[in-house]
C-alpha cells in the first residue's frame, strides 16, 4: 500500500515538473513550426524570387534603421556610462532609477510620450505656434525616420549604459594607476588599457541594442507611420492586412535566424567578459566631480539624459490633463489651456462614435484581467522551471536555454504562430481570449525564471533538512520555510510578469478581438484616429499605463532582485 502511494506521488511529481516542457511544446514550438511551414511554402512552393522582391525593402530598411539607431545610442550611451561608472554626484541614485524606467516602459507609452512632446499636437509645436503665431505645426517629426531613431535611442541608451557602465565600474582603477606609474600618459592608458578591457562589454551592448532595434515593432508602427516598414511591421501587414501568411512566415523565419545569430554572438561575448574582470565594489572607483571641465560634463550629461528620459513622459502626463481650446480672438487664433480630467472621464463613456463596442475603461479591466492570469501562469510554470534548472540535472540543462528561446523570438512572430495554429475551436484566436495571457506568459516566463532561480539557488538547503528532522513534510517545509524566505523574489517576479503583460503590444495585435482590447491596443487605435478627443484619450490611457509600470519598476528596484541587470 505504502509502495503504491509512493508511486502515485512520484508520477504526480513527474507530471508537475513536465508541465513547463509541455506548455512550451504546445504553445511555443507548435506555433513556431507552423511559421516555418509557411516559410517553406513561400520559398519552395511559390517562387522565391517573387517573395524576395516583396520583402527586400523591409529587410534593407530594418538593417538601415537598426544600424543608425545603434550608432546614435552609442554616442549618447558611452559618455553616460563613463559618467555613471566614474563619478559620484548629487542625484545619481535618482538618475539610476530613471534609467531603469525605459527598460520596462511599454512601447505604446513611449510612442504616445514622444507624440505628446513632438507630434503636431505636441507641446513643442504648441509652444512654437504660440510664439510665432503660426496656424500650423512647424515641427513635423512624426512619421519620419527621426522619430523612430529618437524613440530607439530613448529605449536602448539605457541598455547600453547599464551594460557598459556595469563593466566599467568593475574595472580596477589600479590598472590605470599601474600603467601611469610605468610611464604611460593618460591618453595611452585609454587606448592600451581601458578600451581593450571594455571591448567585450561595448560589443555586447552594441549587439543587444542592435537586436532590440532590429525587432522593434510598436515604435516603427506608431511613430514611423505607413511609409516605413521593417521586417516586424511587414509580418504584421502581410499577415493581418494582406493575408499573405506564407510570406509573413518567411519573414518570421528570416527574423528568427538573425536574432539567433546575434544572441549566440552576445552569449560568447558575455562569457569572455566574465572571465576578464574580477568583481569589485563600485564605490571604490567613483570619484567626486572636480574642476570646471568635469562639472560641465556631468551637468550637461545629466541635462541630456533627464531631457531624453523625462520630457516625453512628463509631456504625456501634462497632455492628458490639460485641455486646449482654440478660439478666434480678433482675427487671431489663440490657444487657451486649462486643467481638465475630461479625457479620463471619457474613458468611462460608451459613445456611439467610439472606436469600441464597449466603454474604453473596459480595456483597462481587460488588461488587468489578462495581467493577473499571466502572473498566475508565469509564476507557476516559472517556479517549476527554476526548480528543475536549480537541480542541475540533465533536464535542467536542456530547459535552461530552451526557456530563453521565447525571449529571442519577436512578439509578432509569436502572434503569427498563434494565428496559424489556433484556428479551430476550442482553441481559436477569435473566440478564446485567454490565448492573450498565454502569449504574454511565454514572454514573461524567462524573466520569472531569471528572478526565481538565483533566489532558489542561494537558499540554504540545511533549513529544509532542519525542518524535516523536526517532522515537517516536504510540502509543509516549502510552504512554511522556503516560501517566506524567497517570497521577495516571488513578488518581484510577479510584478515583472504583470508589467510585461500590461504593456505587451506585438503579439496582442494578432490576438485581441475588437471587443476585447487591452490598454496598448486601445492606445494604438486612438492614436491612429484623427480628432482631439481621440488624441486626448490616448494620452489619458497612456498615462494610466505609465503610472502602473512606474510603480512596478519602483517596487522591483526596492526589492533589489538582480533581474534588471541580467535580462
Amino acid at each position, binding site marked *: 500500500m505504502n509502495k503504491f502511494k509512493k508511486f502515485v506521488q512520484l508520477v504526480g511529481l513527474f507530471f508537475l515538473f513536465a508541465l513547463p516542457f509541455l506548455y512550451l511544446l504546445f504553445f511555443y514550438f507548435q506555433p513556431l513550426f507552423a511559421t516555418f511551414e509557411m516559410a517553406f511554402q513561400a520559398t519552395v512552393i511559390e517562387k522565391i524570387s517573387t517573395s524576395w522582391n516583396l520583402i527586400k525593402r523591409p529587410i534593407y530598411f530594418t538593417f538601415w534603421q537598426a544600424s543608425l539607431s545603434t550608432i546614435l545610442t552609442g554616442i549618447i550611451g558611452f559618455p553616460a556610462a563613463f559618467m555613471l561608472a566614474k563619478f559620484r554626484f548629487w542625484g545619481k541614485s535618482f538618475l539610476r532609477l530613471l534609467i531603469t524606467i525605459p527598460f520596462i516602459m511599454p512601447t505604446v507609452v513611449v510612442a504616445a510620450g514622444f507624440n505628446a512632446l513632438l507630434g503636431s499636437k505636441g507641446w513643442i509645436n504648441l509652444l512654437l505656434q504660440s510664439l510665432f503665431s503660426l496656424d500650423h505645426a512647424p515641427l513635423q517629426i512624426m512619421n519620419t525616420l527621426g522619430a523612430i531613431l529618437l524613440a530607439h535611442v530613448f529605449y536602448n541608451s539605457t541598455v547600453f549604459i547599464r551594460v557598459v557602465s556595469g563593466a566599467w565600474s568593475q574595472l*580596477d582603477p*589600479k*590598472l590605470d*594607476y*599601474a*600603467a*601611469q*606609474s*610605468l*610611464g*604611460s*600618459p*593618460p591618453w*595611452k592608458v585609454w587606448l*592600451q*588599457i581601458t578600451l*581593450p*578591457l571594455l571591448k567585450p562589454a561595448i560589443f555586447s551592448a552594441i549587439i543587444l541594442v542592435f537586436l532590440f532595434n532590429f525587432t522593434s515593432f510598436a515604435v516603427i508602427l506608431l511613430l514611423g507611420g505607413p511609409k516605413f516598414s521593417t521586417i516586424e511591421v511587414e509580418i504584421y501587414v502581410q499577415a493581418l492586412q494582406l493575408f499573405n501568411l506564407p510570406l509573413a512566415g518567411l519573414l518570421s523565419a528570416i527574423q528568427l535566424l538573425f536574432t539567433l545569430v546575434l544572441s549566440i554572438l552576445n552569449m560568447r561575448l558575455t562569457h569572455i567578459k566574465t*572571465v*576578464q*574582470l574580477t568583481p569589485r565594489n563600485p564605490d571604490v572607483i567613483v570619484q567626486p566631480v572636480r574642476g570646471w571641465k568635469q562639472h560641465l560634463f556631468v551637468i550637461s550629461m545629466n541635462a541630456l539624459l533627464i531631457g531624453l528620459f523625462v520630457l516625453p513622459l512628463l509631456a504625456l502626463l501634462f497632455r492628458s490633463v490639460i485641455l486646449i481650446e482654440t478660439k478666434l480672438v480678433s482675427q487671431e487664433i489663440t490657444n487657451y489651456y486649462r486643467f481638465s480630467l475630461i479625457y479620463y472621464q471619457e474613458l468611462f463613456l460608451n459613445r456611439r462614435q467610439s472606436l469600441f463596442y464597449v466603454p474604453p475603461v473596459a480595456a483597462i479591466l481587460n488588461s488587468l484581467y489578462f495581467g493577473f492570469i499571466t502572473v498566475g501562469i508565469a509564476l507557476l510554470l516559472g517556479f517549476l522551471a527554476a526548480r528543475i534548472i536549480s537541480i542541475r540535472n540533465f533536464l535542467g540543462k536542456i530547459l535552461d536555454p530552451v526557456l530563453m528561446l521565447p525571449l529571442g523570438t519577436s512578439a509578432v512572430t509569436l502572434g503569427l504562430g498563434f494565428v496559424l495554429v489556433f484556428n479551430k475551436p476550442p482553441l481559436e484566436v477569435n473566440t478564446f481570449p485567454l490565448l492573450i495571457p498565454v502569449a504574454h506568459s511565454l514572454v514573461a516566463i524567462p524573466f520569472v525564471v531569471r528572478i526565481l532561480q538565483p533566489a532558489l539557488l542561494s537558499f540554504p538547503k540545511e533549513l529544509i533538512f532542519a525542518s524535516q528532522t523536526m517532522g515537517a513534510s516536504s510540502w509543509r517545509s516549502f510552504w512554511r520555510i522556503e516560501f517566506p524566505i524567497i517570497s521577495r523574489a516571488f513578488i518581484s517576479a510577479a510584478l515583472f510578469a504583470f508589467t510585461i503583460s500590461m504593456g505587451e503590444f506585438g503579439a496582442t495585435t494578432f490576438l485581441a478581438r475588437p471587443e476585447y482590447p487591452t490598454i496598448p491596443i486601445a492606445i494604438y487605435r486612438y492614436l491612429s484616429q484623427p480628432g482631439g478627443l481621440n488624441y486626448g484619450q490616448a494620452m489619458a490611457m497612456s498615462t494610466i499605463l505609465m503610472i502602473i509600470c512606474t510603480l512596478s519598476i519602483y517596487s522591483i528596484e526596492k526589492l533589489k532582485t538582480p533581474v534588471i541587470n541580467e535580462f
Partner: protein
Amino acid sequence: MQNQLTVKNLFKKYENKPLLAGVSFTVKEGETICLLGRSGSGKSTILRIIAGIEQPESGEVFWNQQNMKDIPVHQRNFGFMFQDYALFPHMNVFENVAFGLRMQNLPAETIREKVDAILRKVKMEQFSHRNVQDLSGGEQQRVALARAFAPEPKLMMLDEPLGALDRTLKEQLMDEIRFILHESNIPAIYVTHDQEEAFTIADRLVLLHDGQVVQDAPPEEIYLYPHSSWVAEFLGLSNLMVGKILSVEPLWVETPLGNLKIERQKVNRLQTGDSVTVLLRPDSLMIDDKEINVFPVKIKDQIYLGDQWKVKMMIGQYDFIFYTSAALKSTNFQHVSLNPKKINIFLDAK
C-alpha cells in the same frame, strides 16, 4: 649629491576624519624603509600621494630638492607595486613586463633583452608567454615585481605586496624581495601591517599611528627601545602596567606589584612623582639570580616551544607572559626576580 625622497608634513582627511596629520620622513639612496601600522592608518594613502595618484590637503613631496607637486604620475618614474598586483589582464607576462619599457620608446631588441633579464631574476623566464590570469598568486606577485622594476624606477613603492599570499610562500618571497631591493640599490618604501615582514625587509621602520609617525628607527632600536606603550603593544610586548617614579637616581618605580628597580632609560626628563607605563620585557625573567626585584609568583602554565619556554604566570593580581631558556622548577608557587636592564618605562601613562 645623494638621491633622496623627502616627505614633508602631509595632511589628508578621509570621510572628514583626519587620516594623515603631519607625516614626514625621508628615504635615502639604496635604503629600504617600511611604513608599518594597523590597517586604516593611512600607509597606502602616503604611497599614493608620493606616486601622484592622490593629492594631499597640504604638505609636499620632494625628490632631491624638486617639489613633485605638478609632475604627473607618468613622468615621476616612481615604480609602484599594488597589493593585488593589478596585472593587465589582456596582456601576457612578457607584455606586462615590457609595458613600462615600451612607454620609454626603447628599441624592440633592447626591450626583449631587458624583459628576459628581469624575468630570469624573478625566476619567471619560462612563463613569458603565459596569460597572467592563469598564474598562481605567487607567480603573479613575481610578474608584478618584475614589471615594476623593469623601467628602472628612481624609487620603488610596494603596497602590501605579500598581503594576499599564504604563509610559506610569503616567507620565501620575503627573502627574495629583500635581496632584489638591496641588489638594485633603488630606494624603496614598503608598506605592510605585518611586523615580521617589516622586520625582515626594512633597513628602517617608520611606525604610523593616529596619522602621525610615532617612531622612525632601525628595527632593532624600535624593538629594544619602543617610544611609547602603543609601540610596545603594537610589537606584541604586552606585559604593561602603570607606575609612579619614586626616585630618579637610582631609578625606582612604584607599581601594583611593589617597587621596581630599573636601569637608566633612554627616556629623558624623568622626575620624581611622574606617572609612567612600565613594560616588563618578555625576557626579563631571571630564575636563579634572586637579589633584586624579587616577587612571589603563581605559575599558571609552561609551554615548550622548541628553543624556549613560554611561561604564563600571575604576579599579584596580574597576568604576565615571559619567555625563558629553561622551564621553571616549581609548577605552582615560587619566587622570581626581574632583570632591571630589561624593563622599559614610558611617560605616556593616562
